[in-house]
């Protein structure tokens, strides 16, 4: 039994309960069956003893006289009378010394001899075919013999033999029924305990103490559930208390840490501030020193320049003054009308060169003081050179100089249109001045220098000592032209300044007697367009269209907020924006751009709407509103290259 329970320890509660119920019912059933069999067989023996006893008594009394008078024949006759009695198998009468006196058995059982009296026991004897009853025959207190009466109980015996298989069969049926019942019944117990066990596992696995055992049970299971739930509640409330405590602790620590951090931060910031202050102090000091030096050197340059220029300014004035005095004093100098005209022409020439000088001075001054800003546009190189040639054409023709424009038709230059043209003009003009008849002035793109326009001539070249100082304001390098032309000497420095203002350069390559080549180099920077559009496909389309215009950098933003961020990083040459944008729409974005003096001159093209009828009306309203806000153009969707490119090019590429 304990073995079974040890073995069952590895089983689930459900199976153990089933096993216990089944074992109990099997044991109870076996006991009941045993008791039944015991009582059944003892009752059977009792009734058999009674039945056989009665039969034996009657038979004995019938044969006693025959036995007493030794009449075996009559005794046998009497026994024959019992042959009709059911189940009688044998009747044997023994005499007083145990010899067989009379015998009866059914006629068909001829093999049945009388058992030897030595083997008999008084009372019930079990025999091969049934039971036999043995009792003495007594008359008046004297034993005169024995009677042996055997009853055929084959059927009964067979029935008894069936008890074992019947018991086994019933045990099987009971077991099955018991199993089914117990399987159902134990669920009432194991189901609830199983659910509790599962919950306990879940709680321990998930550490979730909010879980509760649910179920309406009474008695022990109910108590178990209630206790388990109470335990969970306790753990939960303890956990909460711990957590609250931990939270408090964490908050306190956090608070202290934050305070410490703040103190640290403050200290650090103070330190940094101090360091920065010292740094900026040093920086300003340095700047001041540099500025001082620059100022000193600039002053020196200016002084030289002024002394140079003042001579140029005074000399013509002195000449003019002398001429005017001669013309005024008619009495002293009697001038012929021809002489008068010559003098006036001289005065005109002097004043003209004076005016030129002053203009140039003003230009230089403006350029240096930053009053002139560079506004880059895409320029077509070939027409630009052509128009500069036109300015000196007559002059050149007169001197017999060839002008050759070798700039390709598709050349695009990103430069300030006015100032850049001025540089080209100056260089060409300079060459015309120094070249003689038969010389050629050629403008072209040199293969070995990118972004560069070369102005080359076959003139006298530049004397080596002059070359390094050609672009200096404070050293006069000019000389008289091939036809005796004079110059201010300020042209090349001015051009040099313009190209530096572009971020480019002006250099010269020359050898005396072998002509000179000036290289006008522009920086590599490209024009830039900012496209503000929230739909990626539209953004890409606009970018493609812009890139068809030329080598233009395109940056993108999804809405006004992002576009403003981009503007902090760089300055685009054109903004193309949609109106319907997330976060900050096109209207607000245009308003912001136009209200900021830093950006208010960046051209804006609005790309939006599009449609007919009512939508066209809406389109019209939008158009009106964006122009009021300060947009430069409005392009309706859908965009087409034919429509968009010329409009955009206007701002990138003025005609």
């Amino acid at each position, binding site marked *: 039994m304990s073995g079974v329970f040890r073995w069952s320890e590895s089983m689930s509660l459900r199976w153990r309960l089933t096993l216990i119920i089944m074992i109990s019912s099997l044991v109870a059933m076996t006991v009941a069956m045993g008791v039944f069999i015991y009582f059944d067989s003892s009752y059977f023996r009792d009734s058999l003893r009674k039945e056989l006893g009665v039969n034996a008594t009657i038979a004995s*009394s*019938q044969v*006693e*006289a*025959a036995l*007493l*008078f*030794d*009449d075996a024949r*009559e005794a046998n006759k*009497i026994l024959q009378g019992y042959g009709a009695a059911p189940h009688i198998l044998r009747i044997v009468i*023994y*005499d*007083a*010394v*145990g*010899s067989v006196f009379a015998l009866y058995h059914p006629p068909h059982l001829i093999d049945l001899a009388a058992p030897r*009296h*030595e083997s*008999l*026991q*008084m009372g019930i004897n079990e025999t091969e075919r049934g039971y036999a009853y*043995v009792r*003495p025959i007594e*008359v*008046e*207190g*004297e*034993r*005169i013999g*024995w009677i042996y009466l055997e009853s055929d109980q084959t059927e009964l015996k067979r029935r008894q033999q069936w008890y074992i298989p019947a018991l086994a069969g019933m045990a099987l049926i009971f077991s099955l029924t018991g199993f089914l019942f117990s399987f159902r019944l134990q669920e009432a117990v194991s189901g609830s305990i199983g659910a509790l066990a599962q919950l306990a596992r879940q709680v321990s696995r998930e550490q979730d103490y909010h879980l509760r055992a649910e179920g309406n049970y009474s008695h022990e299971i109910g108590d178990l559930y209630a206790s388990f739930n109470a335990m969970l509640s306790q753990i939960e409330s303890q956990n909460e208390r711990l957590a609250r405590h931990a939270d408090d602790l964490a908050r306190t620590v956090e608070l202290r840490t934050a305070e410490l951090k703040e103190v640290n931060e403050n200290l650090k910031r103070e330190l940094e501030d101090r360091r920065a202050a010292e740094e900026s102090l040093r920086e300003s000091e340095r700047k001041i020193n540099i500025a001082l030096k620059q100022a000193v050197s600039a002053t020196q340059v200016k002084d030289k320049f002024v002394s140079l220029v003042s001579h140029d300014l005074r000399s013509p004035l002195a000449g003019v003054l002398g001429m005017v005095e001669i013309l005024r004093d008619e009495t002293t100098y009697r001038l012929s009308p021809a002489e008068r005209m010559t003098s006036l022409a001289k005065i005109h020439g002097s004043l003209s060169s004076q005016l030129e000088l002053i203009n140039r001075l003003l230009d230089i001054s403006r350029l240096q003081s930053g009053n002139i800003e560079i506004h880059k546009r895409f320029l077509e190189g070939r027409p630009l050179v052509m128009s500069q040639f036109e300015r000196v054409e007559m002059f050149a023709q007169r001197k017999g100089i060839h002008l050759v424009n070798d700039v390709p038709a598709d050349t695009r230059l990103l430069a300030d249109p006015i100032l850049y043209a001025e540089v080209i003009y100056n260089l060409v003009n300079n060459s015309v001045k120094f070249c003689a008849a038969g010389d050629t002035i050629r403008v072209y793109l040199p293969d070995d220098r990118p972004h560069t326009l070369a102005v080359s001539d076959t003139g006298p070249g530049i004397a080596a000592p002059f070359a390094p100082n050609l672009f200096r304001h404070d050293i006069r390098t000019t000389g008289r032209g091939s036809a005796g032309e004079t110059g201010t000497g300020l042209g090349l420095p001015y051009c040099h300044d313009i190209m530096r203002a572009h971020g480019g350069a002006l250099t010269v390559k020359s050898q005396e007697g072998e002509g000179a080549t000036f290289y006008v180099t522009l920086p590599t920077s490209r024009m830039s367009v900012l496209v503000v559009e929230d739909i990626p496909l539209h953004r890409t389309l606009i970018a493609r269209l812009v890139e068809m215009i030329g080598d233009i950098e395109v940056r993108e933003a999804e809405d006004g907020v992002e576009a403003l961020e981009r503007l902090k990083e760089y300055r685009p040459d054109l903004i193309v924006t949609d109106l319907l944008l997330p976060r900050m729409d096109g209207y607000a974005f245009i308003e912001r751009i136009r209200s900021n003096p830093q950006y208010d001159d960046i051209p804006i093209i609005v790309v939006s709407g599009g449609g007919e009828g009512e939508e066209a009306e809406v389109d019209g309203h939008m158009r009106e509103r964006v122009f009021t806000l300060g947009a430069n153009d409005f392009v309706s969707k859908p965009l087409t290259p034919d429509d968009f490119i010329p409009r955009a090019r206007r701002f990138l590429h003025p005609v």
Partner: protein
Amino acid sequence: MMRLVALAALSVSLLAPMAAEEPVSALQLKAAFLYKFTIFLEWPEAAFADSKSPIVIGVLGDKELAAATAETVLRREVRGRSFQVRSYMWEEDIEPDVHLLYLSPGADHGEFIGRLPKARAKAPHAFLVSDGEESVLRGAHLAFTLRNDRLQFLINLEAATAANIRISSKLLRLATIVDAMGERR
């Protein structure tokens, strides 16, 4: 009964058999029969003075049988009654309280016939036993006969009934019943 005595060793399981030391003689067998008859006979109440009165067996004209019978019934009882055995020489001596009377036929059968009425008169309740078929026909209730060397008996049921003595059917089964006319049943 001879075999009974002759056999010796008895089984342990068959308890207390009838003891017998020596072969049973014809006399002893007859004495035993006389005793055994009383077991199957029933007398009227008037035959006994009281419930304790003994059964009286009278033997007329055979002292040896009387002695053998006395020996047989010694310390025996039937239905709570002990026995008295009386030996008579003359029929005039027969006492009225005799319950079973054996009449020896003697050498002369005629003498016996003559004694029978007297004996019946002397002992009115007596069950009359004698030898030979003739005696039954003449008024004896039971007569011994020897057939095939076996001691058997004839019973005159009519006469016994007339004497108000009831004979058990068990005994009757063993006997040959004859009536006054000599017919057998």
